[in-house]
């Protein structure tokens, strides 16, 4: 399952990805799909597993991130609500 963690800036996304990879979570910076951006172009952190853990790591590292989306098999994105994360 592919997840996208939206970030306010490229630098912010890079910092988030670095925090995650330092802790052993495979994450990469990708251009965010336009359909998920209210204000046009932006970047996101992409990962395939350990989303719950990633969310905690980013919160603890005080890396501000935006909404999180899960990519469905049909290519559509659905927002992952806070309550869906097992924190």
């Amino acid at each position: 399952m592919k997840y996208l963690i939206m970030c306010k800036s490229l630098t912010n996304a890079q910092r988030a990805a670095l925090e995650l990879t330092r802790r052993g979570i495979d994450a990469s910076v990708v251009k965010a799909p336009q359909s998920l951006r209210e204000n046009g172009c932006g970047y996101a952190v992409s990962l395939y597993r350990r989303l719950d853990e990633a969310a905690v790591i980013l919160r603890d590292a005080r890396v501000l991130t935006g909404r999180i989306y899960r990519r469905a098999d049909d290519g559509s994105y659905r927002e992952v609500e806070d309550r869906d994360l097992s924190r």
Partner: protein
Amino acid sequence: MIYLDNAATSLIKPAAVGREMLRAMQCCASPGRGGHSAAMRASELVYRCREKAAALFHVPESENVVFTMNATHGLNVAINSLVSKGTRVLISGYEHNAVTRPLKKAGAEILVARSPLFDQASCLRAFREQIGRAQLLVCTMVSNVFGFILPVREIAALCRENGVPLIVDASQAAGTLDVDFEALGAAFLAMPGHKGLFGPQGTGLLLCRKKGTPLLAGGSGSDSILQEMPDYLPDRHEAGTQNVPGIAGLLAGMEYVEQKTPRAILEEEHALLRLTGESLAEDERIELFRGPDGTQSGVLSFRIRGMDCDEAAGLLSERGVCLRSGLHCAPLAHRSAGTLDTGTLRLSLSPFVSREEIRAFCGMLRELLDGLR
């Protein structure tokens, strides 16, 4: 050629600087725009440089490191952000035109904390006496003309005690002195990439505590629908495509500085300064501007009695010596030191200057003066 103009630009760079610039030109596209591999390579490079700068200058978050064209650019952003017509701004008596001209342009009321050359206690006293009237303080860490190290740590503490925001010009300090952005608590700190950090010309850094007001507007690769610049750093101040080869060179330069350490670089420059001083101090035709231990960086101004500094620099240039003459874009510093009417000759050092070159320069200078008798 004997290159002694490192306070203007460090011409001799670590070999990795040119190599990394070339590599970036060949491999890196626009950072923060596309998502393809060449764009992402550029983005990663830019981020690595941001992280390196944040680590070297003690910036808690790399987002607060903004790339600029040079220190002047950064100082303009900072001053434009904090100064409006009538703002009372207290500055040292050793500021560069990169500070005084933007202040004048913004309509600031400029207060000068005047103090004698190489007298750190008087400098601090002068700031203390006037800070009650100031709404902002701008201070250089090191005079570009005389190498005078100002007591910026103490001045920063004074600002914090009085609730006055501080802008620091680290143009002559970055790479040789400990530049601790977090400890200083400055609102902004600007530095060039092409001097003590050994990056190429056209690079600089602005460390930001505040978001500030953008000087330029344009594409940032982020929030493209909005017609204002993003309200977050670093995008807020980075309109247009970045100088990626320059940033690659700057990163290589900072890696050199980090590995060698600013302290060791300063020690090497001090050793060369002592050698110059010992060699020329006895000559009554030469007036050296030397400070006590701990008050001078690797920059030395001097005058030749009865000889115009620009003429002297021209004659030295004919002999292969590169040093700077005149007012060095800092008339205020000359006014403070009493050299406004003559200007000075300035030699400025780097770890790439050898003792042999210093000996050769001193010999050439004495020969030149002997020939003029």
